[in-house]
């Protein structure tokens, strides 16, 4: 996922009507934060891939005459997921070349689940629902009190490396990367006493 936490999708479809409809829907998938741009020709698709970091290409298999997913993977030069969008029934051997396929008659939750599965198949998991462990809460308290990683490690009898791993996981779960942000979290969730911290 990209810098703004959104999934970046290119819709590659010759018909502006279908492409606008697809990108409209992709930006409104339940539980998926996506940004879609439209490419109506193969050169436009390549421009999109080179000028923005793209996670997923949603493409009509007839795009640009006959669309070759392997060729696009090669031309892109980085890891992208390619999803076929079926306007009618597609042959199995065509679909095998794609990471997944959606149909224009699918409902939005179905499409959303597929898109989510594609970006989650990497390292990221469903972070929102993962609660903080007791240890992580303890570490937040110490960070907020102004202790360095070394001091936290000494206090908890763990290595600095472990402290850093915990901090990375905390940042990922809470989507908070700054000390000030953590302080706000800690106060609101009563992990610390106001008297214990200096603002």
């Amino acid at each position, binding site marked *: 996922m990209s810098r703004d936490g959104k999934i970046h999708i290119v819709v590659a479809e010759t018909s502006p009507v279908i492409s606008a409809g697809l990108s409209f829907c992709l930006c409104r998938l339940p539980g998926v934060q996506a940004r879609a741009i439209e490419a109506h020709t193969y050169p436009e698709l390549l421009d999109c891939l080179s000028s923005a970091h793209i996670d997923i290409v949603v493409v009509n298999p007839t795009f640009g005459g006959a669309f070759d997913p392997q060729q696009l993977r090669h031309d892109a030069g980085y890891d992208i997921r390619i999803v076929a969008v079926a306007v009618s029934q597609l042959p199995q051997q065509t679909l095998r070349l794609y990471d997944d396929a959606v149909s224009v008659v699918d409902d939005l939750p179905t499409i959303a689940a597929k898109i989510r599965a594609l970006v989650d198949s990497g390292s990221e998991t469903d972070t929102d629902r993962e609660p903080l462990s007791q240890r992580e809460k303890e570490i937040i308290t110490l960070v907020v009190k102004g202790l360095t990683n070394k001091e936290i490690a000494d206090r908890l009898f763990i290595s600095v490396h472990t402290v850093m791993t915990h901090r990375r996981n905390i940042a990922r779960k809470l989507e908070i990367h700054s000390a000030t942000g953590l302080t706000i979290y800690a*106060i609101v969730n009563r992990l610390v006493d106001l008297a214990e911290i200096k603002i």
Partner: protein
Amino acid sequence: MESKYHYSPDEKMARLIADDYRLIQVMSRFGISVGFGDQTVREVCSASGVDCDTFLSVVNFVVDGYAHADAAAHVSVSSLLHYLKQSHAYFLDWLLPSIRRRLLDGIPMRTDSVSILILKFFDEYVAEVRTHMEYEDRTVFAYIESLPSPGAKPGFSIGTYSDHHEEVSSRLHELKSIIIKYGPGDADSNLLNAALYDIYRCEEELRSHCMVEDELLVPAIVRLEKETGSRETPQ
């Protein structure tokens, strides 16, 4: 051949704005003010001393969300630099201070530490953006301005200017989510909403600004460096 641009120089300027109001920002950063009547893009640009190709490259970039492969070839570097400097001034001198005022108005600043911390978070963020943009103004843009002459700073090339842009917009994303998840419940909702709307808009505009730098400026400079380099070799 089909026009490379979404909008052509013969389009009425007023139509661009009617189509996409974000283009008002683009226009004014190029130094074009309202009141141009029914003139075309070409006429308005020429009356305001703006390079029309550069203007349209930025306009089409903002509208389409990506840069056409040869867009950088049509760009006048000095016009684009002017535009980017004006953008910096807009963020630093206008938009960010106005968001801060709205936060101050919307969030009751008692001794309540969360309110104060939210403002602190914002101030830290603004300081980061300022450092980043001032670095660009002083180092990157100054380098680019010196480029055609051989007196360019040794050891610096546009490749050195790597992607600092990640943090610039992700921190704003964090601020938004902190206010929404942990903000004080007794804030004045109209004022706080106005601040949040501004933050959303600012995030969007910063993203677009950074993309113009990455996708129009950098390729244009890479070209220029190549040209300068090849001109110097035969000497």
